[in-house]
């Protein structure tokens, strides 16, 4: 039986009727076409599907969409202001932190949520912060560089 869900996605109020078992990942990708949220393992291990729920990084394959009743979701598509990229996005581009780009949305959003809570982290902290997000292309070096550069700029 379909149930009613009210939430905000990337700033827009939405109402949807969905099956109760629908994951947030499926809602975003299949129903709302926010395909920047990637599907890498559907078991919470790779982090490619990470989105922000009320500002906190959440693996969208692991939560049921109905758990997001009344909440505010930010996907990678909602991070930039129009064509004005978020400083993390710019930093990822400048530092060569993006290769295939499949982990990038989750990595950027995890980093954002983490930096919001820990504005002055060490490199070790940053590595720990993104340890739930896998990347097979970059060896993480340039991703960490990109995040640390953003931290330095914020100082």
């Amino acid at each position: 039986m379909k149930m009613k869900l009210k939430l905000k996605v990337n700033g827009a109020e939405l109402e949807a009727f969905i099956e109760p078992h629908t994951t947030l990942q499926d809602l975003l990708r299949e129903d709302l076409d926010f395909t920047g949220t990637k599907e890498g393992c559907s078991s919470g291990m790779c982090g490619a599907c990470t989105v922000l729920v009320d500002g906190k990084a959440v693996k969208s394959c692991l939560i049921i969409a109905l758990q997001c009743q009344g909440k505010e979701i930010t996907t990678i598509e909602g991070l930039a202001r129009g064509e004005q990229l978020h400083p993390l996005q710019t930093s990822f581009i400048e530092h060569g932190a993006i290769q295939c780009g499949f982990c990038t949305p989750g990595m950027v959003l995890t980093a954002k949520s983490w930096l919001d809570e820990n504005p002055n982290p060490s490199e070790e902290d940053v590595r720990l912060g993104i340890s739930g997000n896998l990347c097979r292309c970059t060896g993480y070096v340039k991703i960490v560089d990109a995040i640390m550069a953003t931290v330095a700029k914020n100082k």
Partner: protein
Amino acid sequence: MEYSVIGKPVKNVDAWKKAMGIAKFTGDLKIQGMLYGKILRSAYPHARILKIDTIKAKKVLGVKAVVTGKDLPKSLFGTVIKDRPAFVTEKARFMGDEVAGVVAVDKETAEEAIDLIDVEYEELPAVFDPLEAMKKGAVLVHEKLHEYAHVPIITVKKGTNICGHTKLRKGDVEKGFKEADLVVEDTFTAQPIQHCQMEPHSVIAHVDGLRNITIWASTQSAYVTREAIATGLGLPANKVRVIVPYIGGGFGGKYFLKAEAQCVMLSYVVRKPVKLVLTREEVFTATSVRQPLIAEMKTGVNRDGRIVARQCRLIWDTGAYADIGPNISRNAGISAAGPYEIPNVCVDSYTVYTNNPVSGSFRGLGMPQVTFAIESHMDMIAEKIEMDPLEFRLKNVEKEGSIGATGQVLHSVGLKECLQKAAAGGKWIPKKKANKKTGKLTGIGIACVHKTTATPTSSCAFLKLNNDATVEIITSGVDLGQGSNTVVTQIVAEELGISPEQVVVSPPDTLMSPFDLGTISSRLTFHMGNAVKRAAEDARQEILNIASDMLDTNPDELELRDGRVIVKRNPKKGIFLKEMPLGGRYVTGIGHPVLGKGTFCTAREGAVIDLETGQGANASVFWMYGAQAAEVEVDPETGEVKVKKIVAAHDAGKVINPLLLEGQFEGSLVMGLGGTLLEELVWENGRTLNPSFVDYKLPNAVGLPEMVSIFVEEPHREGPYGAKGIGEPLTACIPAAIANAVYDATGIRIENLPITREKILWALKEKEK
């Protein structure tokens, strides 16, 4: 020579779209009327299919079709050997084999219906050990191997499980062993690992009412995919169109058909677009893995450190289907003696069918596995002749003009410099004798590598110029994330005197973009780079011809610089590209539209090696060289190997983009680290016991070593600006470098990858006794 764009850290041209999440990957696409596919795979590693009952599955609301092999045209697919049906009919040969498929209105319905298909199997005796599989009378995985079509460059053995046998013969090894002061023999093994591209394999196929087929696929080669589908189905090539959207990593695992044939067959039945996205478990169990290897090495050496003879017997477990296995046996086989000048070499490299999961290409095409064997063996020999391992290597390494094991006169060989720089960066301490250390267990190890590139192959490119001096590059080069779109952008910008921002690269689409073999074998910068450079030179000449009319001068007196054609002797006189009708004339103006065309093929002569001797004077158009030093600390309490630092020095020829190249170094080193210390697919009687990121551990961002990337730039005469390839060999040195460092630290020699805590702990305990 000073370049304006080549050699500069130009940012990845696709990064903006990827950073914003608007780059569309195959799984992100929706085609009008699209349905969803799902595959039922074999429950046994080797079993006869007696009956498939699809009645219950067909009754599920929303199911459009349930497909079995019997519903389909009899087709065998395969690029090297045509040995694989899209859906099995008689028997299943491994646990990933496709037994049936469902097409439904959504994913959930397809999954529900799959569970309702009843299959009656008769389990057959199976073979999982490649050594057993090679024996006379072994269970045959393919009884009709002799009837299969295969490419002429491989040898298959009728009535056996051996679907590839590469021979390399140079000099006389037996004589060499007799003459040598010492003969050393060791055996090594390398485990199966998985590519773990972050994007699972994804396909959308649409077979229309006239059997025109369109495929959107996460594949490393649009044309190889098209060829395999068209020949498998007996269709003209131009009835099959393959489009490659953005792709989330490849590493070899998305080369050759993986899910494309199944998706096409599902669409063939319903004649509507069908999307098939594999689950992570399917990626682990049913696509392909890195080939496990058994390597027996035997070397004759003199006390002065000269290697006299080397014999290698390599046994590769390709699993249930050949995939690219025979080519791995060939390319790694002709490289198995290592990058050394050895007068007598004999290699026998066998590809063997078993009922294990299928092995395929994996970054390095066998060289990470073989290099582990060669380079561990080198250190073990060095110890026996009481010579420093670095000195021993330097004494034997190939250099410019050396004659390689295939008889090729080698060119552009930066190996010596790589070894010296890697050693210097890792603060190499010469080891005259076996290290007898106490206290803190630290050590350093070194290893080097050479690798071929697929030869002969070809690439093509078109350029389309526009009136505002912007350019479109039309190629089938697949950018897996390594940055080939950026490299070709730089080349066109350099040649046409424009900025990279003025260039756009097309996605591969066989209806429009010309042939390329694929993103494999570290070949794209060299081959596609050359093709694009030629296309740009073609366009530039045309531009100069038009400008010569407009400026009333000879084309030879003109040059293109900073978006302007100028008269060389009078640079004030000229015309901006923007003022020229390069894209097309609408009503007025002079000149004509400019299209550039470039093709690049490597020479065939000497490239196709002799099947009996492995000799070929141009076996590889270029060879890749590199060396790495690893510093480790071993914890005697837990057996943990902590890699403190890796220094990698590789010869890429002229570096086109240092930022992207560094990314290749770092990504490869961490991948190599994973394959050395963490990763192993655990197989038990054909079943994969750890097909998830929970049980199969990949490196994450924590606890990684310091990594130092050193570029050695030995130019190649045929490479664009002197560039060669680099993507694969970077992963190949680490296993041996770490194994050698662990030995240096502990005196324990690990001969079987991966190097786990358990192995070290047991060995330490054994040593104490």
